[in-house]
């Protein structure tokens, strides 16, 4: 039983890992077909992972409603929004528009989801600005450099900034394309080395946390 519960999953990981790592180095139509199929398979299996997430959300809010916890009415609103969107989405076969005309699902997307999402992220502008005002102090040389870079990039992105500081547009582009790019590149190299090391650890069974705890 321990083989089925613990060792077989590790074996599956090892075989699939080595197979798909090797696939990259085999320039053959069959190898390409294997990659295409695997990508499709991963999408299908990933779809079932969504079921796990949605069920968890469903249970959490159902418990809130059942126990009549504080704010349980908002959970009802969440359910109404979710079930309503699913109903109109299935009714419209998942299409936002049909022959140029918006479906009810498209209406929900344009007049509910887009404004809600846009405004939710837009209000962050106020909080980021307020947090920056409170925390951005040029206490050290490093903090001053961060502050100056932020101000130049912000100024360089709007016409008023370029009007007030004529070179801010060009300097902003230089900061983003050269200085920022070099840091991103260094971080990317470091992260990638870590990702490769982690992948090897997973394939060879050193890293097993993805299997979860519980009984052997």
């Amino acid at each position, binding site marked *: 039983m321990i083989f089925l519960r613990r060792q*077989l*999953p590790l074996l599956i990981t090892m075989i*699939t*890992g080595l197979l*798909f*790592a090797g696939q*990259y180095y085999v320039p053959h139509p069959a190898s390409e077909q294997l990659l295409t199929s695997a990508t*499709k*398979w991963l999408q*299908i*299996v*990933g*779809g079932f992972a*969504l*079921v796990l997430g*949605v*069920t968890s*959300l469903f249970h959490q809010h159902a418990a809130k409603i059942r126990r009549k916890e504080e704010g349980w009415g908002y959970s009802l*609103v969440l359910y109404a929004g979710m*079930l309503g*969107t699913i109903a109109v*989405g299935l009714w419209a076969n*998942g299409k936002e528009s049909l022959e140029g005309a918006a479906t009810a*699902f498209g*209406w929900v997307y344009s007049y*509910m*989801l887009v*404004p*809600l*999402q846009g*405004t*939710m992220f837009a209000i*962050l502008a*106020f909080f*980021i600005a307020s947090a920056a005002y409170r925390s951005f102090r040029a206490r050290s040389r*490093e*903090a001053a*450099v961060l502050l100056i*870079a*932020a101000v*130049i*990039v*912000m100024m360089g992105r709007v016409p008023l900034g370029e009007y007030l500081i004529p070179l801010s547009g*060009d300097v*902003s582009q230089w*900061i983003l394309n*050269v200085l*920022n790019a*070099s840091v991103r590149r*260094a*971080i990317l*190299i*470091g992260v*990638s080395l870590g990702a*490769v090391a*982690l*992948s090897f650890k997973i*394939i060879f069974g050193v890293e097993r946390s993805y*299997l979860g705890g*519980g009984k052997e």
Partner: protein
Amino acid sequence: MDATVLGAWVATGLTLCIFSFLYKDNPLFKLAEHLYVGVSVGYTIVKAYDTVIVHLIVKPIVEQGEIALLIPVAIGMLMLTRYVPKAAWLSRYAFAFIVGVGSGLAIPRTISSFILKQVEDTVRPLLSLAGGDGMTFSMNLLDPSSSINVIIILIGVISVLFYFFFSIEHSGPGKVVAKTGVMFLMIAFGAAFGYTVMARMSLLIGRLTDLIEFSDASYGRPTLWLLIVTIGMLIVLSRRTQGKPPQES
């Protein structure tokens, strides 16, 4: 009522409900927040159903007879065994498959695209052979591929990598290199911050543009009316809260 006009009223109402959070946390914001979660989850479910169930499973199996697709369906179903405690271990097969394929695909592609390619772009010739002038060293800062920028990028990448390299002590010349790395990092963090702020500002301008558009008489001026209603409700809710005794924590 026309669907566009109704949409304008709904979009304006939801926008104002969320903007009301700028005053303070209140029931209008919570309502819009929960509706946002519900609608976005519903939207994701419908899109996943359409993409995965209809286009990746049902149509290929029914129309093209791709029976092999039942294997990933079975693997996916194993994930759902997490809800049955006695059979929960079966879900490990599904996770093992996803993690194994993901790791296998990641190794060569990460090495090729994110390590070797990045190193190749960093270590470039400092002098270029352009035209009949022989070797040139370009000083144009606005051109990211100019010689001077190649040197700056090389210094930036090496110093930042060195800053995160803890196997040797950052002292002597190493300290200077690490300090240079910190400076590069600070500039990048500042630039990322500035860029994010401006992206959010752009979203804010978009929402305000919509509110201005919906204040038009052709929509029935929803911005104006709903703004009055929102402010009125905030005043009422604020007075009701003031009347209540403070809750014990």
